[in-house]
């Protein structure tokens, strides 16, 4: 891929992602937040595509932008609020603390990252990511794969019991 296009695409996606992320937090309306979140995810998916992770980009959109956001919206519906305005305000009192903590973390991370010198020349250039991923998943990481299946089962059962229990009340 052309370096220039890569750069432009990166900045585009990055700016969208960061802005959307900020929007998630800034919006006072929960629905708006959710929509911003979806936008952010899509931007990140774009980044994935940029990074030769096309399968992941697809998964991202499917799982996150689709499933996750839908789940969230579903959740909003089920909480049955009359108006979504001001459903999602920031707690004023904790802004300062939260900002300090977050900034501290950011500063620390940046301090570390800016001191790493990367050799960016070599680029992992696998074309058939899906096949390669499948290969890896079913050989090297097969156990993790299986466990992930159990994990999903467990989460499912847990979620069902919890939600059903709540419903039956």
């Amino acid at each position, binding site marked *: 891929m052309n370096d220039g296009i890569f750069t432009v695409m990166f900045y585009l996606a990055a700016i969208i992602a960061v802005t959307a992320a900020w929007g998630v937090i800034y919006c006072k309306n929960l629905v708006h937040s959710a929509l911003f979140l979806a936008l952010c995810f899509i931007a990140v998916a774009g980044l994935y595509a940029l990074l030769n992770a096309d399968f992941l980009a697809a998964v991202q959109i499917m799982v996150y932008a689709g499933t996750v956001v839908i789940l969230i919206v579903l959740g909003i519906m089920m909480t049955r609020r009359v108006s979504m305005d001001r459903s999602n305000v920031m707690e004023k009192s*904790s802004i300062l*603390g*939260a900002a300090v*903590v*977050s900034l*501290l*973390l950011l*500063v*620390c*991370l*940046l*301090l*570390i990252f*800016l*001191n790493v010198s990367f050799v960016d020349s070599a680029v992992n250039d696998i074309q058939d990511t899906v096949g390669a991923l499948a290969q890896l998943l079913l050989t090297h990481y097969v156990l993790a794969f299986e466990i992930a299946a159990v994990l999903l089962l467990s989460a499912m059962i847990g979620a069902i019991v919890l939600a059903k229990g709540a419903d039956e009340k």
Partner: protein
Amino acid sequence: MEQFALTHAWLIPLVPAAAFAIIGLFLQNFHKLSAAIAILAITFGFVMSLGIAGAVFNLGITVDAPFVQRIEWIKIAGLQFDMGVIIDPLSVLMLLVVTLVSLLVQIYSVGYMKGDKGFGRFFSYMSLFSASMLGLNISINFVQMYVFWELVGLCSYLLIGFYYYRIPAREAAKKAFITTRIGDFGLLIGILLLQMLFGTVDFIQLRQVIPVYLMANGAGVLTIIGILLFMGPIGKSGQFPLHVWLPDAMEGPAPVSALIHAATMVVAGVYLVARAYFLFASLPILMNIIAWIGAFTAFFGASIAFSQHAIKRILAYSTISQLGYMMLALGVGSLTASMFHLMTHAFFKSLLFLCAGAVMHAVNEEADIFKMGGLRRKMPVVFVTMTIGVLAISGLPPFSGFFSKDAILAAAAHVSMPLYLIGIVTAFMTAFYMARLLFLVFFGESRQKEVHKVSRFMQLPLIVLAALAVVSGLGGYVYNFGDWVRFGPPVVEHMDWLLASTSTLLSLLAFVLAWNIYGSKRWSSDIIAKKLGIIYTITFNKYYIDEFYALLCRIFIDGIGKIMYFIDLYIIDGTVNAVSALVLLFSKLLSKFQTGQVQRYAAVFVCGVVILLLCTIMYLDKVNGVLAAGGAF
């Protein structure tokens, strides 16, 4: 018989001890049986003592070559104590005096204590006392002596507090114990130092090593040890300034006063000094101290006895005074005179106490001599015996006190004129206050309507003792007491007739004076008291020494104790409690921090991450200088 007695001398204390155990454990409520056992036990002791005395005479056992038996009591690495028996004229004298007086007093007690609830208890204590005192007499070393020394102290405590339901009695008992304990404190240190210095406390061995030590090292350390040792006798024998317990001790029954606080226990101090005379006699400074303390105590005691009202208190101060005499004698180097006086004093003073007991018994436990009077017709036996006692103590010939006191005065006169003068003045005072007592109690008009009869059990000992008070002095003089009981070469008593007649004259003068004041009431005692004014007040109040001690006690015992307790509660414990409070406070802070607000938890979590990252950065900075090299921000 004599041989048996000699080799079985250890039975003498043991049999009364057994009697104590039997009575104390099983027979407390069988009054007659317990009295019989106690008396039998002490009679056995007396008979044995007689046997031993015979053996001593016949076998020629002298103070230089005592008969010693010993048995190992403790043996550990670097330390060995024996218990044993030392038989020489000195201890035989004590054995005889103690067993005899003890026997008589116990017989007297059968009558005196009749009807008392604690009859059995009394005889068990008496047996224990006899056992301890006899054990003390035959001690072969300082530790054994200390053991029995403390035991007689215990008996004294128990018997002073015999009427434990009376507050003065129990207070007196406590006072006696603690006061003597202060003396024992010095004694114990002295013994410990002796043990440390010589590795032994055995009298026989010490006697050999001490002169050698003195030659080599001089008297310095030994004098200190001697002073410490002498603290014991000061306490026990009621010497100034630890005499305060003895008058109070009269709260005990009269037989107790007679036996313990007149005849036997209080002379234990004298006996100790006599027993360890080889040590004391070789330390001139110490001898001076002993003599002066003795002389001062003699005078001091007499001066208080002058103004007291309670009959037994007068006798008690008299005892203090007489003990001072004995110490004086020891201090001026005459062991013989001291022991001689010890013996005669034992007889006449116990006689006096028993008489006083009989008198008080007769007049419903009234103690104030000014409230008595005219008893000579109502209790003639007591009157006669008491008169003999008074004459004996006043040193009128031919009664026993004359000989023994004179020996002391003679010895004092040899050494130091001031001491002699104090002695002679004291003799005058003694005669005066004893006469005062006699006249007030037995002469004048009768103030007591009802007078109890004196039982036969009580009369018999009085008579025996009176006889002894008459003859013991003369006997000792005639049979040359100093041949046997002596330190160094045999002493041949030469009566110094000048001194003797001086003191006799003074005593007579005192009698006349006393008769004029108290007998015929020619001169009013009240006016004299007023005229003497402050002196009278001071002596009447015993020089305020008790009050002074009480003040010291309040300041230095209770006061410091309270301060210490305060420190303990609020400083030491306070620190501990403060620490625990601090921990609790910290705990509270931590709980407060746990608000239940989950986002705060998350924030803290992130802070933790930040801390870890900071550690990382610091570490990286250290290993490859991130901040220095990059300085990116």
